[in-house]
Every structure is written in structure tokens, then in C-alpha cells.
């Protein structure tokens, strides 16, 4: 097949790609000048916060979870009352250096126990679920660059949806390039330039944008020199691609990576232990890579899940859907430590912890003090959160 195709010369197509685009994409990228990058990690399925940052001195914790509590001897102590899950050991170096932050007890008003409704709330930063656009989509509109944020993975999360457009998804950097057969580029342009309406117009626009984005990635990607060995997991490979995109210096301010499988209704220990190990090993390799590339001072990682789980284990050595949970952040720009107070396990709402910090306050800190953007416009209000940026 290769001998029938050759690399498309993109110069002509690049011209076509700027036409017919939504308003904000065609505006000058006036605010895109910052150099700091935020990497968002989504733990899909509802990660159990109590088994992630463990209240290992709290009898109520062990009483509620006779089968799945993390034994005190296995906990990685971080404060006199809290410790990390043993699977997170690769992140202890960051903790010791003062670059790892835990945000305790994070949630939102009127919590929703549906995975999908709750995830949409985190994606839109709107607990009323009235908005369709994602918070990163609105961030992109503020910056005015269609390439200022990308998902690294196969499908674009709602967080990256803007009014009439989704920001790019890059599944694998090496495959992110166009090859068209000889003799077809002119007819292809003609095909794309034909007037259309409705979903056909959407597909045309998305294709033009893709041509532009692939050219931009391939133009910069060779700057990357591997700085760390990554584990052989899909998640770690996506983090490696994230590091490559950052090293390419393409002007991206937000990158988004997901790790799924946290819906631990049964046999939680085995499942969550493995997932947190995958998470920590991948993230530790990523941080090492950034440090060796001299990029670590410009990158901060922030992680969340759509909800935590019930305090009490269920009858299947698992946990059902709960409410608030922990968030984490790390990087040289992060003020390490535990921000906020641990949930009161003896004062529950319907068997769930009562949240004490609104996640939008955590987002606001990243937007205002790390990305230097107007958080109020993006989040639709003023939210105060912990000062987790150094």
C-alpha cells in the first residue's frame, strides 16, 4: 500500500483549513503566550478516595470496611492521620520533595450518583447540568487557539467540547499524520471545499482542522528525546505521548489523559490496587521524563474522579457509588501537603461523606494562578479553593 501513497504536501490544504471555522478559532490567539502547561488526569468510574488517602488512625474507617480497608501496616504515612495507598509508592518521592498535594473531601452541591451525570458535572464545571460545553472548551475560547488543549486518547471528553467544536484528540503521536495517494490531493480539496450544511458541514470542518493539527504536531515532534523508561501500559504510553507533545512546544496549555476501571463494586482491593499502581508508575515516569528534559518547572498535573464511593463496603467486598472524594496535584509548581480536612466518618449523608471543598475552587486555582486565565469567565462564578499552586 505504501508505494501507492506518498506524504501529502500540506501547503495548499493549510490555506483551506482556515476558512469556514467557528468564530473563536479564526480570531487571533492573543492570550496564547503563556508557557505553563496543565495536565489533567481523569480517573473514570469513581475512584474510592478513602482507600487512596487513608485515614489510618480512624477506627470508623476500619469498622466500615472489614474486608477492603488498607491495613495500617501497608499505608504510606504522610501525616499523623493520613497515608497513601501502597500502590502509590512511586509518588512518594514527589511527596517528600514537597511537590505532591492532596485535596481532601472535594465534591459539589447536590451530588449525583450517576457516573455519567456526575462526570458531566466535572466536565462542564456546572452542577446544574445546564451547560453542554466543557470547561476546557471555554478555556480554549478564551485563549482563542483551537490547538491550545488536546486529549491524549481515542475519544474526546466533554470537558474539551466548545460551542460548535471539539478540541483535538491525539491517540498516538506516531500515527498522527496524513498520507494521501498521489493525484488525489486536488480532488480531495475540491471535495472539502464544496458547500455543505448540517452534520456534513461539521465533518468537513473537522477534517480541515485535523489536516492542520496533524501538520502542526509532526512539525514539532522530533524535538523530543526520551528522558525516562515508561511502563508498558496504555496509560503510561499516553503520558509519554503527552511529554512528547509538551516537548514539541506546540503552544498547548492543557493536555488530558484518562485512566478507566475505577467502578469497583466487587472485589475492590485487587482492582483498585492494580489501577493505583498503574497510575503512580505512569505518573512517576512522566515526571522523571519532564525533569530530564528541563520541562518540569512548566508542568503541573491535576487528577480527579467523578465521585468517591460509599464509606461502608458492600456485600461483595466492593463499594457502591458515593459522593465527595480526593483530588491530587503534583509538579514543581505545586505546594505539597494535604489541603483541607478529612471527611468525618461519623457524620455521613445517606452513607456518604459530606464534601467540604467545591471542585470548582480547585479548578480556579489552576486557571488563575497556573495558567493565568480569567477563571470567573470559564467557571461562571467565583470559587475559592485551596492554595495548591506554589
Amino acid at each position, binding site marked *: *500500500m505504501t508505494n501507492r*501513497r506518498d506524504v501529502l504536501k500540506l501547503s495548499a490544504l493549510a490555506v483551506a483549513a482556515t476558512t469556514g471555522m467557528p468564530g473563536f478559532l479564526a480570531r487571533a490567539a492573543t492570550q496564547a503566550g503563556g508557557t505553563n502547561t496543565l495536565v489533567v488526569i481523569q480517573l473514570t468510574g469513581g475512584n474510592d478516595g478513602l482507600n487512596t488517602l487513608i485515614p489510618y488512625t480512624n477506627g470508623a474507617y476500619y469498622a466500615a470496611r472489614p474486608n477492603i480497608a488498607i491495613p495500617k501496616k501497608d499505608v504510606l504515612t504522610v501525616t499523623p492521620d493520613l497515608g497513601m495507598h501502597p500502590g502509590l509508592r512511586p509518588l512518594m518521592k514527589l511527596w517528600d520533595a514537597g511537590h505532591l498535594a492532596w485535596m481532601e473531601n472535594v465534591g459539589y452541591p447536590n451530588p449525583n450518583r450517576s457516573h455519567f451525570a456526575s462526570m458531566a458535572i466535572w466536565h462542564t464545571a456546572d452542577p446544574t447540568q445546564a451547560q453542554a460545553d466543557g470547561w476546557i472548551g471555554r478555556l480554549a475560547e478564551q485563549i482563542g487557539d483551537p490547538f491550545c488543549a488536546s486529549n491524549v486518547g481515542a475519544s474526546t471528553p466533554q470537558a474539551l467540547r466548545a460551542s460548535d467544536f*471539539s478540541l483535538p484528540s491525539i491517540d498516538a503521536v506516531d500515527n*498522527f499524520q496524513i498520507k494521501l*495517494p498521489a493525484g488525489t490531493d486536488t480532488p480531495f480539496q475540491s471535495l472539502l471545499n464544496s458547500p*455543505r450544511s448540517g*452534520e*456534513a458541514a461539521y465533518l468537513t470542518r473537522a477534517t480541515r482542522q485535523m489536516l492542520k493539527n*496533524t501538520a502542526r504536531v509532526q512539525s514539532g515532534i522530533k524535538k523530543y528525546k526520551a528522558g525516562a523508561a515508561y511502563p508498558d501500559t496504555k496509560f503510561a504510553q499516553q503520558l509519554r505521548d503527552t511529554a512528547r507533545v509538551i516537548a514539541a512546544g506546540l503552544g498547548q496549555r492543557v493536555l488530558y489523559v484518562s485512566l478507566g476501571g475505577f467502578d469497583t463494586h466487587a472485589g475492590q482491593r485487587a482492582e483498585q490496587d492494580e489501577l493505583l499502581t498503574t497510575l503512580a508508575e505512569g505518573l512517576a515516569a512522566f515526571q522523571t521524563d519532564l525533569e530530564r528534559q528541563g520541562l518540569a518547572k512548566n508542568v503541573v498535573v491535576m487528577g480527579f474522579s467523578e465521585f468517591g464511593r460509599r464509606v461502608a463496603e*458492600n456485600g461483595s467486598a466492593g463499594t457502591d457509588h458515593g459522593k465527595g472524594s480526593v483530588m491530587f496535584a503534583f509538579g514543581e509548581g505545586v505546594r505539597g501537603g494535604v489541603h483541607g480536612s478529612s471527611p468525618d466518618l461519623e457524620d455521613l449523608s445517606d452513607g456518604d461523606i459530606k464534601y467540604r471543598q467545591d471542585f470548582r475552587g480547585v479548578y480556579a486555582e489552576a486557571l488563575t494562578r497556573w495558567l493565568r486565565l480569567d477563571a470567573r469567565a470559564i467557571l461562571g462564578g467565583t470559587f475559592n479553593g485551596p492554595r495548591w499552586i506554589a
Partner: protein
Amino acid sequence: MPLTPLSRPLTAEDAAHFLRRTAFGATDAQIRALVGRSAQQVAQQALAFDQSLAPGNPFDPMQGATPGAAVQLTRGAWLFELCYGPHPLREKLALTWSNHFVVGTDKVRNVPALAGYLGTLRRHAATPSFEQFTLEVAQLPAMLRYLDNDQNRKGKPNENFSRELLELFTTGIGPYTETDVREGARALTGWTYQGGRGNRQYLQQPAFVNQPTQHDPGRKTYLGQSGTFQGEDVIRLAAAHPATATFVSRKLHRAFLSDTPDPGAVQGSADTWRRTNGNVLAVLSELLASEAFYASRARIIRSPLDFLVGAVRTLGQPNMDARTLLNLTATAGRMGQLMLQPDTVKGWDGGREWINDTTLLLRMQVAAALTLGSKAPDLRAPPSFLALTGQERPPGAVLLASLDGRQRTYLSLISPEFQLA
């Protein structure tokens, strides 16, 4: 109000549209065969499928040497049925239901359980009773395992299935409370299965069992009614709830009419659903012969499988070897639709969610492999614009017409028109 039936005889573009939606696509000859016929007759005929399967399927999941290999063979066998089977509408519906009553091979790796699941989706593809369909799905070992109801026991409830029964399978979010979820879980205690557990027993047949000793016989209040409800009662109350008619009708409109369904048209189908007590066959018969159906051209972005199977059927079902078919199941996965493994229990949202830079690139690669690659099928008689795009004269037709058949087919497959149905 029931949907208004289409009164005109089918034109060529009507026929192409019908086959794009109900058969993934078709050859010129298949399209021409429907021209001039009535919409009602065409819909009835397409829905009158039996349970026969494609002859010569090269994949037998029971031959899988490991659970992972068996899952792969299950995917290959289904793709073969989608591409070459005698009843594409039955398979289109099975695919639609697999995105409604979702199970995932991350948890379900038992071959007979997956076969039982697929068989149920096919038998109930155009079911006269949604309630019966839901009941049978709820008792499938694949579903009991996937949503953990096999572990839902008296005094130790596991709410996973009870929640998704309401949120995703019947009423949708809104008509129920957290209490309904909990009470439903109590009623469903005791439903589990025997056999076929774990990686070593992946070829063993599991079977549904109702264990009375694990059942909570107490009084429950569920969706506004009270009684000593059992699992069957909860399924019946959820399936017969008025909101279910609208929620599931909307999914049928997503599958057959538009990525953004018209609420009025959905209401028409929901009325028919309620009038017939959840007779999906009646709803589909009306839907697929309606003016609304024929007015909804190019409103659905083809899913990866719609794209792949549509290309194969539009090219006249060329032979592809088993390895190529297995590769295509993996490619569909990279395009966002790994068969029997949606990312979450909600299934694939579809529509614009199918489209991003990476998936567009993969669609281009697949189209090239099917038309230009060294193993591409014979294209001495390339499909017409009508077969490829549903239009006699699609945008860009003039320049495309000047290319050779392979290149014209390639560019048509990556055009917005082919990617829409």
C-alpha cells in the same frame, strides 16, 4: 399521534437512504430493486427476518485457546455476520441493543455467556415485548456478571444493576429516586448464576439461578408501588413505566433517524409504544415507513462499525480473509468502537463523539486499504455515487468523476456524505 406514513413510492435516493440506515449500505442492484415500491412494504419485508446466520463463518469462539482469544473470535464472528449475514437489519438492531443493554468483555469473558447475550439480542432484535426482552437480559449470566447482580444478596445489597436498570435500560434519569435504586436492589437479591466462572471455566456454560435463601422477601416500595417485590416485579414496573416508552424510543430514533432526535417524532413513537405495551416491532414498523424517517437524510454520523460494514456491503461484500476481519475488529476499536466493550455501561454516545482527529485519520487509512491497498478487493465495477453517498450527484462529483474507479471510491469513502447515513 402515530408517525405519518410515507405515501409516495420510493425513489432511487429514498431506497439508498433506507438501505444505508437499515442494512449499513448496499450495491446499486440492491438499491434499484426497491425503487417504486411502497415504504410500508419495504419496511415490513426488512423486519421479517428469521434467525438464520451467514454460512461459512470462519470463526468459532469455542476454539479460543484462552479467554482473550475467545473474545477476539466472538468479535470476528459478529463482524462476519454484520458484513455477510442475510439479515443486516437484525444485526443493526442487535448492535443497537448491545449499546443499550451494555455488557463489557473486561468483565464477561465466558464464551457461552457472550453467545447467550448475542443470541438474546438477535432473538429480541425487533421484539414484540420490551418487558420480556428486559427480563431475559436481566437473567443472562453475562449481565448478572457485568453489573454484579450475581453478588446481590439479602442483607448485602449490590446496587449496580438496580441503578443501571433505571438510569440506562428503562426510565432514564428523572423518574426515580435513590430509594428506588436501593429498594430495587433488595428485590433483585438472589438472582445469580452457576458455572462458567473465572478464567479456567471460560468455555463452560453458565446458567441463571434464583436462590431463595439469598432473597430479601420483605416489603419494598418501588416507583410508587409497594409489595413484597421480587426481581420480576421490579423489571416489570421499570419496563412498563411511561418514561421508558420515551427513553427507549429516543434511542431508536438515535439509531435510525437522527443524532439529535426531534422530540415530537420521538413522542409519536412513544405513544405507539405505550398503546402497544412496549411492542418494539410495531414501533419499528411505523418508524421505518414514516415520512419523518425519509425526511431525515444525512443526520447520523456513521459509527466505526457502520463505516466499516457499510463500506464492505457497498463494495458488494468482497471476500476478506479471517485475519483481515480480525484486524478490522481491532481497527474499529481504535476508532472508538470495540465490539462488546464500550468504555462504560452507558455505551457509546455516538454522533459527533465518533469524530476527532485520530478517528478521521483512521477512517482515511481504512478507506485506502479497502480501495487502493495491495490486498484491496477487485473494483472493476466500482459502486456508483448513489451507492456510496446516497446521492446521484454528491458535492465534488465533477472532479471525482475524472478519477479512476479506485481513487473515486477512496475519496467517496472519506467524504462527509459517505460518513453520514
